[in-house]
């Protein structure tokens, strides 16, 4: 459905100067197409704008080697810059879970995949890292949200905090903390209700939870199919609650994943994991190279240029 960047650029390529250094005009022409490709991949407009500007500065005047066309050269520069932006510092997928019991707070918009990701992460911590994990649902809003987490807990063999109806999220968080300490758990995970980033009351509520639990990690769970709204979500959640990382879900879909770039650019926080399905083992650590090719809609040409 979408033209990929190489198709887009093919027309432009021909018009680019054939040798020497990339001229200002060459780069400008090519980057106009890059901008459109980014926007079609759902990169948020301000992020796409800044990104293109940064690449413009980097590319202008660069020597074009004989083996590639100027267009390919631009693509390579764009691709490398994408990976640079997407890459966070440190080990991808690493979580601060020393000093047990370490709290992990899961936040995000409605339906993004928090509850599913909570259980997937718990399973991973248990099986890969040999951690004892306790999960607690603080979702007093969505019907059967607590039951959902409890069922997943049974499926993956991870304990969930017993459900007590009528408690507030803060009360549940306190109980989870106590229980995690008494029960000798290494990690306790707090799954929260979905909330709009402009919902003052619910944002206050999750702040109160944060202040009680003092989470080692606060993960923003974001739908990988998110469009332009990614900037608002990222900004508001990070400003109000302070996130330590991002999990992108539904990357098993055929979305182009531009939200990844928006999230990174706006928050500066690492994308730690991607969700690749509904099953409990469909969680992988984030790989910037894969997403970069996907955003540009063109894994292959980059590989080609790499070889050249």
């Amino acid at each position, binding site marked *: 459905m979408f033209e990929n960047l190489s198709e887009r650029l093919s027309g432009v390529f021909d018009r680019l100067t054939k040798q020497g250094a990339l001229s200002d005009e060459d780069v400008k022409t090519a980057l106009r197409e890059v901008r459109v490709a980014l926007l079609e991949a*759902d990169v948020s407009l301000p992020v796409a704008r800044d990104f293109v500007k940064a690449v413009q500065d980097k590319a202008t005047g660069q020597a074009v080697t004989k083996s590639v066309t100027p267009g390919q050269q631009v693509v390579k520069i764009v691709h490398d810059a994408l990976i640079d932006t997407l890459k966070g510092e440190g080990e991808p997928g690493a979580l601060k879970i020393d000093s047990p019991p370490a709290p992990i707070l899961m936040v995000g918009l409605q339906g993004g995949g928090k509850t599913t990701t909570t259980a997937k992460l718990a399973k991973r911590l248990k099986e890969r890292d040999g951690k004892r994990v306790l999960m607690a649902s603080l979702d007093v809003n969505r019907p059967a949200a607590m039951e*959902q987490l409890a069922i997943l807990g049974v499926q993956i063999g991870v304990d969930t905090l017993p459900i007590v109806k009528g408690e507030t999220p803060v009360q549940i968080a306190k109980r989870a903390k106590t229980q995690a300490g008494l029960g000798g758990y290494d990690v306790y995970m707090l799954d929260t209700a979905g909330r709009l980033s402009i919902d003052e009351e619910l944002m206050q509520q999750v702040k109160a939870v944060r202040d009680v639990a003092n989470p080692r990690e606060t993960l923003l769970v974001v739908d990988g199919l998110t469009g332009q709204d990614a900037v608002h979500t990222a900004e508001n959640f990070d400003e109000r609650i302070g996130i330590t990382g991002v999990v992108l879900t539904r990357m098993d879909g055929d979305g182009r994943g531009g939200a990844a770039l928006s999230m990174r650019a706006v928050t500066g926080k690492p994308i730690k994991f991607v969700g690749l399905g*509904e099953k409990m083992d469909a969680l992988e650590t984030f790989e910037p190279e894969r997403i970069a090719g996907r955003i540009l809609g063109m894994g292959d040409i980059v590989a080609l240029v790499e070889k050249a």
Partner: protein
Amino acid sequence: RLMGRSTAQPVVRRALDDEMLEQLEELLISADMGVDTALRVTANMAEGRFGKKLSVAEIKQLLASEVSRIMEPVARPLPIYSKTPQVVLVVGVNGSGKTTTIGKLASQFRAAGKKVVIAAGDTFRAAAVEQLQVWGERAGVPVLTAAQGSDPASLAFDAMGRAQEEGADLLLIDTAGRLQNRGDLMEELAKIVRVIRKKDETAPHNTLLVLDATTGQNALNQVKVFQEISDVSGLVMTKLDGTAKGGVLVALADRFGLPIHAVGVGEQIDDLSPFDPDEFAAALVGTDG
């Protein structure tokens, strides 16, 4: 800046030139309209007005009416037929708001004096059935269920029988969320439709595709594939109470022309409104204050 909040200052008129058009395009792109559609909408709006001096308010007003003009033909409520039970199948990707929307619809139809039955066709997701049962209670509507992991098509078949026996006016069938590129899950959906047609070849009478307003350009693919597989007859867009504007609906109206029946504006039972093109356009362009 053009898009900033207007304050009580003397009205500045600006020429509707290329620079201005580009800013307007960006406004629309930021609302998820997509590059192509944004270009076309601004070009249409500028036709015959290029170079004219206009105030920001006038320009936004023109843009809003252009959007609203495109959306007018697709703003249609869910049609109610005399044939009973009218079968409404609800489909969409994961987490878009299908189950919640069914709860809201059930409540509205019941309030309108219809006899409604719900089938909990999501036999996959943990506690999907329990979630829908709560909505059934809230709406005062019975919910037919099957065990987790059982075949959703056979539940749909049984539910058709029950709805017929009970003389229901409407049968709302929930389905599990599925991404449109998952061939196996789309085939499962196709099977649900086939099995429903064994009971009544005119059913499902409506297939509602539920879209999440935060979704970007992937919504185009969602509509394309779900329509191929399950003959989508109308759209509902949820989560328009957030910061997302749902501009992709304009691209969808342009390309597919499917009716938009309703919009979700919250998590409560009454938070489902008819789709209003003027309101939608105003929010999209930012003339709603």
